[in-house]
């Protein structure tokens, strides 16, 4: 009976968590995993922002020290990932709801190349970025709860406090994720359900 109660409680917690997706159409996990050129785990060691050549868009570049490639993909020890948004000389550009990439993060990224360059970007927006956390003996992956335009968790907030959502969704074990990637890349049909 105690076990049933725990299960009910867990179910209620999970079902009451707010959605943190943006106005995106949710893609099946196996599609995202198949479309990604590279799937890596690594640490973001450095970020910097700069305007593009036409001075219209600020991009943030991140150096990712890779310590694992998933699926059949492989590549260099260091990758540069370029995402829209950043701050230059006090002016900040953000693509609201898009993934942000920050120095010091331990991440799993699904990456694809920008249409017009050889640079990598996070594939499928927030579905292509996970934060890596320790949970007891397990290493788990969680969706990054802080997208562009959201409050920084634990960060100092200037002016009136905003009430941005900063939930911590239930995690996915790293090895479970690796298996799902292998399955998806092998084009075997798996029903992962819809990530929320």
């Amino acid at each position, binding site marked *: *009976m105690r076990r049933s*109660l725990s299960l*009910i*409680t867990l179910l*209620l*917690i999970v079902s*009451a*968590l*707010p*959605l*943190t*997706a*943006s*106005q*995106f*159409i*949710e*893609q099946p996990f196996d599609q995202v995993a198949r*479309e990604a050129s590279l799937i890596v785990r690594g640490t973001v060691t450095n970020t910097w922002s700069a305007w593009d050549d036409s*001075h*219209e*868009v600020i991009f943030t570049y991140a150096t990712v020290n890779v310590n694992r490639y998933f699926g059949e993909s492989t590549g260099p020890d260091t990758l540069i990932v370029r995402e*829209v*948004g950043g*701050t230059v000389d*006090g*002016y*900040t*550009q*953000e*693509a*609201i*709801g*898009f993934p942000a990439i920050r120095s010091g993060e331990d991440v799993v990224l699904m990456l694809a190349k*920008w*249409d*017009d360059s050889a640079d990598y970007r996070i*594939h*499928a*927006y927030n*579905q292509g970025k996970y934060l890596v956390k320790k949970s007891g003996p397990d290493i788990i992956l969680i969706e990054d709860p802080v997208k562009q*335009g*959201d*409050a*920084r968790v634990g960060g100092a*907030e*200037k*002016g*009136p406090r*905003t*009430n*941005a*959502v900063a939930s911590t969704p239930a995690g996915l074990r790293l090895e479970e994720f690796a298996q799902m990637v292998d399955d998806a890349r092998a084009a075997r049909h798996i029903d992962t359900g819809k990530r929320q």
Partner: protein
Amino acid sequence: MRKQTILSIALSAIFVIAAAEPVMAYTLLSPRRRWATTPITVRVYNVGNSTITDGDGGVTAVVGAIRAWGIISSSTTSSAAVRGTAPATIMLNTNGGGLCTGGCLAATLTGYYTTQTGDDRIYDADVYTNTAQPLYSSRESGCSGEYDIDGIMTHEVGHVIGLGHSSVAGATMYPSVSACNTSPRSLATDDINGKNDLY
């Protein structure tokens, strides 16, 4: 014993729901930011979206739809968006150079200067549309697996004015939308509360 168990489950359920229910509804972009003055000028580029078959690719529909916010002065323009430069411009005919593709319906790119005195000031915001997604407008009849451009752009203009997402299902600023759902066209009380918090 059985009654006690049921009571215990019920109490646990009430406690958990109360604890997990977000106390907030609308959110503001962080750091808090707003335009210096209202009404906020938003232009809709007069080259419409090719999947919208209402005569002008959704341009007229969007110009009207975004006025729902009450603080928007909208019109068409023959000038494409220049990112980083006002006025706010909605582009229905381009994904912004690969900015909004795949599962992205529309994307708002907003720019602001950090101030030392309080609210940050929004300087520019431009909206881009995924031209590969099937879209329709309020000036068309019927819907078959398409996404409503009026609602999508009313939502994006919520970001333009400084709002984040809402946890209230049915609010325009709710983060997800399904095909043929037109409810985001109409602001919910929660959306209006968010706007009134800023302006």
